[in-house]
């Protein structure tokens, strides 16, 4: 296992280098002069020249890239052009927020998605299957921003049950923190639940038709045991992979959901940074989530090997 992990990590290095080149290059391809926006309405030529100099925008792009990578290697992702805060500090500030939202959304998705998938596979072709499918399809089709605003109007404005938006750190007031995150996590979670439900259903359908399930039933084993111990366990491999990748996506920031519910996570950070041409922040955050995604992939592969002994003998 260690050798496997080591190998995968080594292979990840070129991927990370490629990501860094893309992140850096794409930014430079953006039209418009970032300094014109940064200099403010008056566009003082002296200030523009100074900013160009300060952020090395006069250097050739490969030189800029090399300087950026040189700093990253020393743990310095640069400074936000907009607020003067170090990008590493910004990421450290936003990461817990995004992780909390991702974990809560994932829990909601798992709690809804997997039982629904198992049930609809088990009751394939019945009205339960149909209802589950229609609900899942709706979950996938309804846009996050619409569902978010509708929930705010209903739950916060009409019923007054939950805060409309905002964020309270878990360390400050755990109860309030979970209450403010509940709606956004639900909005995100239901969409993911739909994906998970579809994957669980198809994996379960395959497994339920296999010989060993028939054998288990023929042995006179209870249906619950057959479903959970024999069928679901074997169907888990694709589900684990999908879940891990979904988690990676969540970490990259739920841009729309965070915008609607004003959650200060990665998504909002990136959107604001892109609009303000805050290069250092965009580069830092995208690089960070890119790396997180790679490691989640490795984690997914490793989990598969744990779950499925056959994969250990290649």
């Amino acid at each position, binding site marked *: 296992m260690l050798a496997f992990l080591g190998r995968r990590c080594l292979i990840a290095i070129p991927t990370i280098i490629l990501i860094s080149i893309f992140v850096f290059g794409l930014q430079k391809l953006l039209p418009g002069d970032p300094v014109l926006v940064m200099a403010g309405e008056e566009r003082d030529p002296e200030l523009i020249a100074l900013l160009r100099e300060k952020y090395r925008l006069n250097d050739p792009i490969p030189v800029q890239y090399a300087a950026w990578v040189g700093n990253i290697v020393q743990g310095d992702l640069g400074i936000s052009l907009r607020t*003067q805060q170090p990008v590493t500090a910004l990421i450290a*500030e936003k990461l817990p927020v995004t992780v909390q939202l991702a974990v809560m959304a994932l829990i909601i998705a798992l709690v809804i998605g997997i039982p629904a998938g198992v049930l609809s596979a088990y009751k394939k072709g019945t009205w339960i299957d149909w209802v589950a499918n229609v609900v899942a399809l709706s979950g996938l089709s309804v846009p996050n921003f619409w569902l978010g605003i509708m929930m705010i109007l209903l739950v916060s*404005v009409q019923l007054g049950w939950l805060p409309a*938006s905002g964020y309270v750190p878990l360390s400050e007031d755990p109860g309030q923190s979970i209450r403010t995150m509940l709606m956004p996590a639900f909005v995100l979670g239901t969409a993911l639940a739909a994906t998970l439900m579809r994957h669980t259903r198809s994996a379960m359908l395959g497994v339920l038709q296999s010989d060993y399930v028939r054998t288990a039933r023929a042995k006179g084993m209870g249906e619950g045991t057959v479903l959970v111990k024999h069928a679901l366990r074997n169907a888990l491999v694709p589900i684990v992979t999908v879940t891990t990748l979904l988690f990676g996506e969540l970490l990259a920031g739920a841009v729309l959901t965070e915008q609607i519910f*004003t959650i*200060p996570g990665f998504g909002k950070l990136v959107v604001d940074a892109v609009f303000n*041409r805050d290069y250092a922040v965009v580069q830092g955050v995208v690089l960070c989530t890119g790396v997180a995604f790679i490691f989640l992939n490795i984690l997914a592969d490793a989990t598969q090997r744990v779950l499925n002994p056959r994969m250990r003998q290649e």
Partner: protein
Amino acid sequence: MTTKRTFALALAMGLGASWAQAADLRIGLQDDPDVLDPDQSRTFVGRIVYASLCDKLVDITPDLEIIPQLATGWEWSDDGLELTMTLREGASFHDGEPFNAAAVVANIDRSQNLEESRRKSEVKSIASVEAVDDYTVKFTLASPDATLIAQFADRSGMMLSPKATAEAGVEFGLNPVCSGPFEFVERVQQDRIVLEKFADYWNADAINFDKVIFLPIPDTTVRLANLRSGDLDMLERLAATDVASASADDGLIVEQAVSLGYQGITVNVANGAGADSPIGQSELVRKALSLAIDRDVINQVVFEGAFAPGNQSFPPTSPWYNADFPVEGRDVDAAKALLAEAGFPDGIEIDIQVANNPVQTQLMQVVQAMAGEAAIKINIVAKEFATLLSDQSAGDYTASQIGWSGRVDPDGNIHQFMTTGGGINDSKYSNPEVDALLDKARTSTDLAVRKESYDAARAILADELPIIYLYHVTWIWALDDKMQGFVPYPDGMIRLEGVSFNE
């Protein structure tokens, strides 16, 4: 019965809870401010936070008169080259440092000489500044500059603790120390900025809140929902389309003030090859376009009547507006006649660039439809804002839909756009007569002389139209009806002196 009792109990508890936090004011902002250093920042929304955090040398009234704040009085020398200010005694910074003439000298020095300062152009007329005594400061100018006082009513006049700026340098914005009614507690980017009452504030009696919490909520619908659910006490920049519904809500108060800025169409008249177009070369064509547009219709269709139609660099509500040139109605026949006179009887076709956001695009679609009826075919070229700006300053455009956020002093709305070589004169419009008038208005400290000069310049500009003005944004605030004492200002700021929750 039980349900009723529970409900009553919950209500009572809810009320109790709101009493307990009664002195915490929660304000919803449209954007997250940039760096909280008045010498470095550039956003409008940042200034809203400064209104509670940082006192200025002078302030304005809703009618744009300059009134004392940290300076209690001022006097110009006859030649307009010396400005002497007397300062408030007993004011201090949030770190306990005293406010005095030495602090003013240090602040002007920082605005002029901090490498990253975005205030340099605002205070460049100051040749030297000296502390005459502890509470008198004398500014010596290189050339007369009547606009300086108004600059002191904004970021250039904000006084920062010299001790804090010396220690923090360029990182001052991470922990700003000023002398306003509230002091900085914490900031979580994109989430909140928390200020608490400064006990030693010179005007502390007028301040009725223990804490102010600014919450950036960019989505207008969500911002309003937060106000309705009680999570906010007030918000700024309510969407024009929400004014009707918010006004109809008994629990809300809507307040408005026409802003100092403008929106219009800047025409490239001499900025490189882009100026080579019928509209760039002929003032008759520009006049035709202006006549083809019904500014009231724009206001009704795009902004539900909430904004102010306009045709000058100052809004009709401004004391600087030239009443001899009122907003004219639409006249398609006259527009066509002007086109024919200019040599284009069959009409013309022009490209107008616009920032690719829904509101400005909608605006241009309305303009496009109206101009079309006067045989002016407009092609809307939507661009991302940074690109639009680059192309505009490079002269790579025919006409551009763009605006200006506005300045307290009239000079800021017109001089740099209309004078030869003006810093943001992207039309490259040049007329020596206009230059002379606007320079005169800038250097005279006599309000009557200034007004005369602006009026005379308007008479020329109304014919030549390098910028076709369309409308002025109205600042719209929505407040919970438990708020009282809020006064709308044309600069869009939220001043909390005298504002309170009613009992």
